[in-house]
């Protein structure tokens, strides 16, 4: 509940402050957002599975974001930044989908 409220507060803050993304962060922010979404969905699934652990969630969240950003950074250095960020998005998207499917099965038994 607190997490949901915090999410809403973050959204409202973003709308109100309307910040500009720093140039250095621009390639990483979208990937980081997708990675964080993956962590959130994974956490919800863990809650439903009854194996949720706060510490695991925090670590996985931060690790997801960092690893995704690292991959993109590496790709940029190698000259394949766009391809690698596409790969990251695809992988994370698949994970989000499978997590969402598990959540759906838990909630709706279908």
């Amino acid at each position, binding site marked *: 509940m607190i*997490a*949901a409220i915090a*999410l809403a507060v*973050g959204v409202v803050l*973003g709308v109100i402050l309307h910040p500009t993304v720093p140039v250095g962060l621009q390639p990483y922010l979208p990937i980081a957002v997708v990675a*964080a979404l993956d962590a959130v969905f994974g*956490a919800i699934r863990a809650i*439903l599975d009854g194996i949720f652990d706060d510490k695991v969630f925090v670590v996985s969240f931060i690790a997801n974001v960092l690893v995704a950003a690292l991959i993109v950074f590496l790709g940029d250095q190698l000259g394949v930044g*766009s391809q690698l960020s596409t790969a990251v998005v695809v992988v994370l998207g698949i994970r989000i989908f499978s997590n969402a499917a598990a959540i759906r099965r838990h909630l709706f038994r279908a």
Partner: protein
Amino acid sequence: MTQEQPRKSGLRLLIDAGRPRATRAQVIGAVLCGLLGFALVTQVHSATGLGFTTARQSDLVDILDSLSSRSDQLRAQIAAEQTSLAKLTGGTDQTQAALEEAQQRAATLEILAGTAAATGPGIDLQITDPQHQVAADDLLEALEELRDAGAEAIQITGSAAAAAAGATPAAGSVASADATPTAAPGASGHVVRLVASSYFVDAPDRSGIVIDGVLLAPPYDIVAIGDPHTMSTAMGIPGGVLDTLTAKGARGTVITHDAVQVTALHQVATPQYARPAPAVSSAG
């Protein structure tokens, strides 16, 4: 009930997890979620805003490539459309020119065929024949002489036969050099346009001459459009039309005009069998 239980437990698990607890992990999770929402909105804003500032160099090159190829395509399309436009415009011009030429030819042919009124310089040949001595041959000769001299449109006016038999009109006054610029055909009798198919027949009782089925009695008044000088000279050559008329006791007077009008029309019957043949190329 056994099926209801797991669903409730799933929801309850979520609710239990969401129940506020002031643990440190809960707070950190909330902060992370808040960051996520913040970053999400920020990214959405920047993505919907300036699309190219966040793009990588290779992406920009790709975009530039696709844009330039698209622009090439559009340029080629513009060229093709302009070509067809020029074609169509040129076609319209050609059609217009052909139409004007055809209309001009039609007008010329109408004048030659006698189905249109005509005006232009010409002469007025007035023939008085008090003794009814002028025969069809004489008028035919006059007509041919006029044609030889280049007459392009000719009409002949005669008195109505009944009137001619009785009171002869004052031929002298008609022949006077009354400088009216245009002849006044048809004012006192029948008018016939002389065309290629015109024919001259002496009336049985010598009361006049039948031209194209119309009985004309003297005096005759022939109006011809053409070169006035040439035609008047042709009329006056020794042994020509005027001399013949004089020898027969009639009198012909030629008056040249700067503008005469040939208003009588020839009725053209639509051909029953003949049809226009397709144009044959002159190269054949």
